[in-house]
């Protein structure tokens, strides 16, 4: 019956090779968690930074969970996409991080990665855009054996999340 508020924002991203970026995000929780209000997933606008190289989205996240256990603590998964001059979108990176478990405001930095693909695909990516994407998006946050995947590092997504916990002490969870 404990409650968790996740209130915050996806600030933006740095370190990506492309400039016009947007981000698709989602929150995955275990079975014990129940979303009381808010939206679990969303997509930010496309930001083309004019000054500096950080793309700012300032995309609000506002979720309210009820939980009956600690298992499956909310996990954030992110997909950073870029939009090129033709308005085409391609994947820049997958990212994943846990929502912090202590109350308060947290600055998170979520590094991202993207599948590399074969050399042919890499070449195609350089010239015509596009790129390999995961067929199963849940790989981003589930602990599948990723060791077979060859990835390239993307940039970092910056998040600012505020956590409000309620009634956790009632069940012996100190925070």
């Amino acid at each position, binding site marked *: *019956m*404990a409650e968790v508020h996740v209130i915050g924002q996806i600030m933006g991203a740095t370190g990506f090779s492309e400039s016009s970026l947007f981000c*698709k995000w*989602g929150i995955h929780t*275990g*079975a*014990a968690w*129940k*979303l*009381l*209000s*808010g939206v679990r*997933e969303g*997509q930010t606008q496309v930001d083309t930074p004019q000054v500096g190289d950080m793309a700012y989205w300032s995309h609000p996240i506002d979720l*309210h969970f*009820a*939980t*009956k*256990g*600690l*298992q*499956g603590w909310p996990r954030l*998964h992110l*997909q950073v996409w870029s939009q*090129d001059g*033709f*308005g*085409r*979108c*391609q*994947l820049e990176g997958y990212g994943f991080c846990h929502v912090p478990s202590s109350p308060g405001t947290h600055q998170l930095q979520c590094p991202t990665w993207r*599948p590399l*693909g*074969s050399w042919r*695909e890499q070449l*195609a990516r350089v010239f*015509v*855009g*596009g*790129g*390999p*994407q*995961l*067929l*199963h*998006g*849940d*790989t*981003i946050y*589930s*602990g*599948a*054996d*990723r*060791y*077979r*995947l*060859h990835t390239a590092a993307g940039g970092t997504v910056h998040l600012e999340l505020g956590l409000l916990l309620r009634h956790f002490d*009632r*069940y012996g969870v100190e925070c």
Partner: protein
Amino acid sequence: MNPKEEKVKIIAEEFTENEEDAAVGRRKKKVQRQQRKKQPPTAGPEEMVSENPHLGPQQEPGQEEPKTHLLSTTARRGPRSLPPIPSASRTGFAEFSMRERMREKLQAARSKAESALLQEIPTPRPRRLRSPSERESETEFGTEPGKEVRRTQQEDDSQNYSKVKFHDSARKIKSKPQVPPGFPSPEEAYNFFTFNFDPEPEEERSEEEKAGAKTRGGADQEAVSPGQQDEEELLDGREAEDLLLGLEHMADDFVAIRPAEYESVHRWLQKEKEMLFVPSRLTVPTYKKLPENVQPRFLEDEGLYIGARPEVARTTGNIMENRLLVQEPERGWFGDDGRILALPSPIKPFPSRPPVLPPGQSTAAELETLYKKAVKYVHRSQHMIGSGDPSGNFQVDIDISGLIFTHHPCFSREHVLAAKLAQLYDQYLARHQRNKAKFLTDKLHALRNAVQTGLNPEKPQQSLETTQKTIKEYKAEIWQTRRLRDAEQEKDRTLLKTIIKVWKEMKSLREFQRFTNTPLKLVLRKEKVDQKADEEAFEAEIQAEISELLEEHREEYEQKMEEYRAAHQQWKAWKRAQRARKKKKKHAAEEPPDEETEEAPPEEDPGKPVPPEPTDRAVLEQQVRERAAQSRRRPGEPTLVPELSLAGSVTPNDQCPRVEVLRREDVRRRSVYLKVLFNNKEVSRTVSRQLGADFRVHFGQIFNLQIFNWPESLTLQVYETVGHSSATLLAEVFLPIPETTVVTGRAPIEEVEFSSNQHVTLDHEGVGSGVPFSFEADGSNQLILMTSGKVSHSVAWAIGENGIPLIPPLSQQNIGFRSALKRADAISSIGTSGLADMKKLAKWATESKLDPNDPNNAPLMQLISVATSGESYVPDFFRLEQLQQEFNFVSDEELNRSKRFRLLQLRNQEVPEFRNYKQIPVYDREIMEKVFQDYEKRLRDRNVIETKDHIDTHRATVAKYLQQVRESVINRFLIAKHHFLLTDLVVEEEVPNISSEGSGILGLSLFKLAEQKRPLRPRRKGRKKVTAQSLSDGDVKLLVNIIRAYDIPVRTPTPSKFQQPSRTSRTFVEKHAASPSTHSPTHSADYPLGQVLVRPFVEVSFQRTICHTTTAEGPNPSWNEELELPFRAPNGDYSTASLQSVKDDVFINIFDEVLYDVLEDDRERGRGIHTRIERHWLGCVKIPFSTIYFQSRIDGTFKIDIPPVLLGYSKERSMMIERGFDSVRSLSEGSYITLFITMEPQLVPGESVREKMSVMLKKFDSQEDEKLLQAAEKFQAECALKFPNRQCLTTVTDISGKTVFITRYLRPLNPPEELLTVYPSNPQATAELVARYVSLIPFLPDTVSFAGICDLWSTSDQFLDLLAGDEEEHAVLLCNYFLSLGKKAWLVMGSAIPEGATAYVLTWEQNHYLIWNPCSGHFYGQFDTFCPLKSVGCLIGPDNVWFNIQQYDSPLRINFDVTKPKLWKSFFSRSLPYPGLSSVQPEELIYQCTDKAAAAELQDRIEKILKEKIMDWRPRHLTRWNRYCTSTLRHFLPLLERSQGEDVEDDHRAELLKQLGDYRFSGFPLHMAYSEVKPLIEAVYSTGVHNIDVPNVEFALAVYIHPYPKNVLSVWIYVASLIRSR
């Protein structure tokens, strides 16, 4: 034994221990050999003693080398046994060597005169130095005396003995110097050795050394070098030199040369044989593996399932068997069949750790990546942003290969037989293939064998009981199997017989009719059998059966016997007892007879049991034989194999009789095609193919259906066309939706049967369909066959470019639909992807009681077993939740019970009741339970039809239906709402542009600056629009500007014919009227102008807020006032969706203010004024809020809805007419009011949503021709370009969401017969009546029901069924009626006041046009200025659409002549001729008469409800009902209905006055269409009749409901207030 020897031995022992494992045998041999060698010199009895000295040295050199090389080993071993030693010993060693050197120097320096001890030193040194490890091991040895004891003793006894002895002595010696146990004591040892061993015999030592050298040269030579290396490592270079030097010196003394030791291979093998066991590779004979006297038993042959054994190489198996036999002979490793017991497959079916693949190779499914091109987003298609799920194109391939009729009306008799034959033959083939009889026979054999083996007591170890049990089971099985087999055989046989019979029939028919129609030919092939063998087999079979039967019978018999015996025993006992009693009775007879009666009644006679008859073998045999003869092939009888071929020839046409020729021609004329329906929408059709003579049609077409949604149904419709006539639907074939595993190329061709129930009688040889016919000449034995056939098809999912099947995601699948298919198949019941969910699968398996032993299910079971054991195939290693249960804080129930959470969730889900909750309490206890009551009630009542509000059930169901439609649409809408367009988020000011037209003309606005200001002609400025989000209660106001009114009814003086006007009751006005008493209204022209005839004021009520204007005077008052009414959105939700669905109306009521003088006393008249103000309702205008919202302002003159009878008032119109005031107005009598209504602030109507949805709706497929749709789009675009404000409509959306061309809605439809007969001779009156009927159908704006989504047009029959619709439906129905009445009628799309964009109906009367308002039933002339239709966009006829391209669009100023192409742009023209679109409307409408009784009941209930309401509205006053008046009114209402509320006023007034002379009466009838009770109440409330608070007021209320066909009800409500005038 001297200590020296001891020491040597001990060292040797140390070696032995070390090397023991490897060289036990060898050493033993060596020892033996040594013994042999040494034996001659030593004497026999000395052996024991001498052996040891020999042995010791012998062994020492032999193992010295190993020892040196073992140095490292010991060093290694050191820490294991005793950690501190190695380091200590090493330092000790280093220390020792240093000291030694010092000592050497010292010794060299000292004089030789010193003791002999010093000379001795070099002698032992080399020995020591040559093997420093020796000392090392010494130290070690010394430190671990206990370890020695612990070691296992594998030595010979003698050795053992000596060892122990040595041990003890060694310990004795060692214990003294080594007080600290771990301390390395090389020096002490050294001293100890040197001192103690001083008098050592030289020879022995030399012998030792010799032995060592010899061995060094021998087998262990290679071990030397490492040993030396070790030495070098350990010693300093210099010291090493010394060592080597020393070695050279001493070599001769110690080394002895011996021949290499060799042991022959022979001996080796022999030795090994003793030690080792090598299992043979040969096959073990079965008898060895089984217990004695047991025959191997093969379970598989007995019909039991045995899993597949793991594959093991035969030799490996043999080795294993051999080994098991030797090693553990009693363990029972072997099964009944003599093979090793084995699980089906003990190997894990998947690797527990997936192999590491080289990069670039295929990866696991969940890690698969797909190269995706950079894509442009089509935003509209994506509602939700999933995490990268592929959207869009899915494809189903439907391959329709052909069609075969199993019956067709054109079948000749022969065809019927042929079809039957073919069917039977198919059946035969199928049976033959399965060959169940054979299978069962085999099984029977196996079982019998099993019983045979089971009966023989070959397995003594098995308990007798279990054997008996199994045998019993077997027997039961045998019985079962036999029965099954018999049945199967009999079936086979009868089938064969039937085939032959049908064939014979066919042959005779062919002969009889003298021609053949079908090429079918049956050949029976006889297969000879070996008569004798056959007979034997048959006999054996029969005998076996008989014996079994006999046995069964015997058992039965025995059982019966048992019973019998028991019964008999009982009977006997009873008998005895009886006899005893009788005896007693005899005794008793002598005693008084009355005792006899007292005696208990004799027990019932159990009857003598009859012994069961033993079965007679002969009888049994007889039975068996009979059965066999019936069901089985007789022995020796040849097996018949039928073969059907199409080799026969068909008689050509010219040789057939005429009827047959006719039939064939008919067949030829027929052709068949199939329509493919996907989710009940036609998507494609096959080409039309001619029916072949064999009634087969080959299509061979593959349809690729690109789909978006999960298919709900796939249907094929079989159509048949005869000649050139239209196609008739024969049958529908429902195809199963393919499983997700079925992809193109893998789908098998399947056949689906269909049949139709049509009745066809033909006049030729064809037998027809659904009609009886007979093969017999006398017509007996009739057959009725229906058209039927089979479609062979295959349905599969297409595969995309990269091999991915194009299957919609599972989430789209409708679960409910699948449940029907459950049980049928595991895969289909849970879906392929459900396989991932193993629990589900396991559950299904247990539910459906799968046979776990069935080989067919084996893989499935294995999968399940793997799954349920916790390992699923997909490695799901991230198991955060595996211990969920244990760590839960609370249970699910408790979580769900939380009211707060529930409330939060419901709010989040935007459930209407909770959508606008602003704050939710923090604690559960603060939430009332009743918060959910409404919601739960609604959920509960969803399927319960509530009849309380709706009174009559039909309307209740319709309301429910509409409610459901509304809900589903709103749900869709809610989804769409969360999907924003750019315009929703970004408000962009348009950039001013010089060139463009419209508001932002820079150039023109510059001119505007220079424009003259005209203060007397003010213009309205546009206001800024406000988005609805930021609003709250009280922010929004409704502004109503009441400007003026025309033609308000004026008061008529109370006629005083029947009554003397009393002073008190005379109105204020009347007093001023000149001569009130005798004037009838028609003579009102005598009123002096300027007299106050009426004092009207306007009251606006909205959401129960009431505002009113000041009172003006005269029938044409001018108020010019602005009223401000607050607006409250439902539930405080100011979102567009909610605002669009506001159903409230703005009521604008016009009242007359009447002042009554209440002065009782005339004398006071001069001094004070005592008047009472009364207000009389004159009429009202009702404007729905949604109209205001969508139009953002309403500006215009509206007709006031004035009740047909307004007592005490009359229109001035007669006066007007007489004066010839306005000839136009005369056509539309009535009163008018000019209004301006708007909202403050201006709200943005939800147009964007509307557009969005309409775009979405356009995606629904249409049945229209693609060309037509394109033309329509083009037409619309062209029109919009020319006149963007004019409405142009070519296609509309029907109720199922399909786009339909608009002209299809227009078709002459019959109005109810009842209406036509009223005025048979007056077409105009009939037209009005029909219009009235249409207007009586309740109006329900689409915008309310389908909140802002789009217009859905229902067809007229749907409209009449629903009894609700908006302008379009009304207009379409009215137009259709007019068309059927023979009028020229069009649908007018335009805009009107107050509805906005709407549909009217235009008719052409003899010489003028009439415009009909379908919702009110009123009609207007074309030139009527008060016609609410303000602009005309387009006209729609049954066959064309005309767009208005004239300069003006007001109906007053346009020409309705559509034949002029300059004025009207027509859709279908010469370039695009009208293709003859069929109508979507039904052929005719069927009207049910409305139940009069129900209407009457409804009437009573409404009256009751209204009366209660009026009483409720007057809480502080007594409400009296005047029954007399009520009954009068009730009589009067039907009259009103009959005359449609016209021309009855005068009669009515007269009547009323006659009856209610004493009362001052004010009241009026209201007329409404009936939809619900609520609007009626609202209407009554708005009249304000209840507001009178005169103390002695009385009320009258009467309701009349006139039922029209189709449950259309016209409601009349008469409300009146009466004030006693005396």
